[in-house]
């Protein structure tokens, strides 16, 4: 069980309001990702849930019970930190055993859970090493192991992958997703990386300056972003945003088209431009298109390899049913 409900939660540091009144429900067993640019309050929100920061006003309910005044240890949540926060002078085994030791669980049960976690996380060979002798990915797994053995109501992850290199990050992303499928425990995951959010989440919470901009499944956010901020934040490469006469044609202040929803045609495209930098990924090619008269620069995604050079003229056709329209306040027009 692990349903977390925030009711009218606020947080102030001195006079600075970091979290304005906020309501959110994280359902039991759900993988929820808080995503947003740095300084948007997503880590603060996680720390409020964990109890490491006191909320200024409002209520936090865990499984329907008021947890606002309960100490972090008693909330039944486990947290994985960005720096892993392993205890450097203890072996991996002792690190993993620490929360159980504090809870006074008997030795046999401790060992059983350690073995189980070590097997699940491929740590069996490293149990007697110190954290200093492990690689970044292994340390991360130890931190997760330390969280698992507590059998918490929910896991809290605070940017757990940002200290890993790109290849390892993809691997760990998969491992955490699989862990979630296996344990079916509530997980709350904070990241600034929208790719992590899209690939792992059941539910994404997009935050900006403490405000929740939109809550929804990854594809809901991708298909129907509620405003320009979400439209620009979700999806890679970024959505092209166009203002001015072209937008007025669609009865909107701003229109947005994702790079993958623009077709390159030989002649007579609706829009025209000059090819700038081309990013060849093999499977796809991203063209930066200049001088379209619509926006400073537009990005177009083409499947496979395309033979266009720097400076070539390019004809573009947006797919009419994939144009997002926004009003002058930046809100989506249905």
């Amino acid at each position, binding site marked *: 069980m692990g349903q977390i409900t925030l009711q009218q939660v606020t947080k102030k540091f001195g006079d600075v309001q970091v979290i304005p009144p906020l309501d959110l429900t994280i359902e039991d067993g759900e993988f929820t990702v808080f995503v947003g640019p740095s300084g948007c309050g997503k880590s603060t929100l996680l720390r409020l849930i*964990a109890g*490491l920061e006191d909320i200024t006003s409002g209520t936090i309910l865990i499984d329907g019970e008021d947890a606002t005044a309960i*100490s*972090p*240890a*008693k909330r039944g*949540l*486990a*947290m994985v*930190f*960005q*720096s892993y*926060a*392993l*205890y*450097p*002078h203890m072996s991996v085994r002792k690190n993993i055993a*620490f*929360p159980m030791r*504090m*809870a006074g669980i008997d030795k046999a049960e401790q060992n059983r859970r350690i073995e189980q976690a070590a097997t699940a996380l491929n740590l069996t060979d490293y149990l007697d090493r*110190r954290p200093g002798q492990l690689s970044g990915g292994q340390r991360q797994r130890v931190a997760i192991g*330390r969280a698992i053995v*507590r059998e918490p109501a929910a896991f809290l992850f605070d940017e757990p992958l940002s200290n890993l290199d790109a290849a390892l990050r993809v691997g760990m992303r998969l491992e955490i997703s699989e862990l979630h499928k296996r344990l079916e425990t509530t997980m709350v995951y904070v990241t600034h990386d929208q790719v992590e959010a899209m690939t792992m989440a059941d539910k994404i919470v997009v935050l900006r300056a403490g405000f929740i901009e939109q809550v929804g499944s990854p594809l809901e956010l991708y298909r129907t972003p509620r405003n320009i901020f979400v439209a620009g934040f979700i999806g890679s490469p970024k959505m092209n945003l166009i203002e001015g006469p072209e937008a007025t044609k669609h009865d909107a202040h701003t229109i947005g088209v994702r790079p993958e929803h623009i077709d390159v045609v030989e002649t007579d495209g609706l829009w025209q431009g000059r090819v700038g930098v081309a990013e060849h990924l093999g499977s796809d090619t991203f063209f930066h298109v200049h001088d379209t008269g619509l926006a400073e620069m537009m990005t177009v995604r083409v499947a496979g390899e395309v033979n266009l050079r720097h400076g070539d003229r390019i004809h573009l056709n947006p797919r009419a049913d994939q144009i997002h329209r926004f009003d002058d306040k930046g809100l989506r027009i249905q």
Partner: protein
Amino acid sequence: MATKASRSAARLMMAPAVVLLLGWMLVPLCMTLYFSFKKYLPLRGGDLGWVGFENYVRFFSSSAFWPSVQATLVIVGGVLVITVVFGILLAILLDQPMWGQGIVRILVIAPFFVMPTVSALVWKNMFMDPVNGLFAHLWKFFGATPIEWLSQASMTSLIIIVSWQWLPFATLILLTAIQSLDSEQLEAAEMDGAPPLSRFGYITLPHLSRAITVVVLIQTIFLLSIFAEIFVTTQGSFGTKTLTYLIYQRVLESQNVGLGSAGGIFAVILANFIAIFLMRIVGKNLDA
């Protein structure tokens, strides 16, 4: 920095400093060693020739020898315990965010800047004087008989004075060590259900172990040779005669340079013995 030319140039440039330091150390050491085998009484006939190990035998068999070694170890041990324990407590206190932190930190460090002679005089006359001292007034205020600190509790008084001087040093080093502790580790321990005392025992204390060994090592080396505090307060009476003070008395009060030198050589050996012993512990701690 690793070419042949740069390495020999480095050696050449370091040479003057090394030679100077070596001379500074070796000349007095050799002279002490030389005198320790002679009967040398400056005011009673001067150099009276070689006597072999007689000075050593006399120094070690003197009734003042073992009590002086004991007094030395009691002072060093007592000061170490007090400075480390209170140093940790003060460091934790100073690490808390509070108003006027900068000024408080400077005030805490201040005793370290006071010369040993001066601080001992201040303690002796201002605090521990049995008639006019602040402690005497405090005792009288509560209706108790004032303690004659320096004669009735001479060792305790000395340990208090020296600890007061060295506490800032310990606090400073331990404070920097505490500040380098990753706060996420403490938060992780908090989430793991460790109450404050366990967090201190399992996370903070192991983190401080290196700093503590450094404090112990450096302080031991300096504390073995404290002199001014004893000279100014008890003059070595009431059981406060340390090894250093005993050597001083042999050389200057009894005017027996040979006997004092033999004691000096013993002090050097003792200090090295303790230093090597401590270094091995520190080495082990620094490896981890």
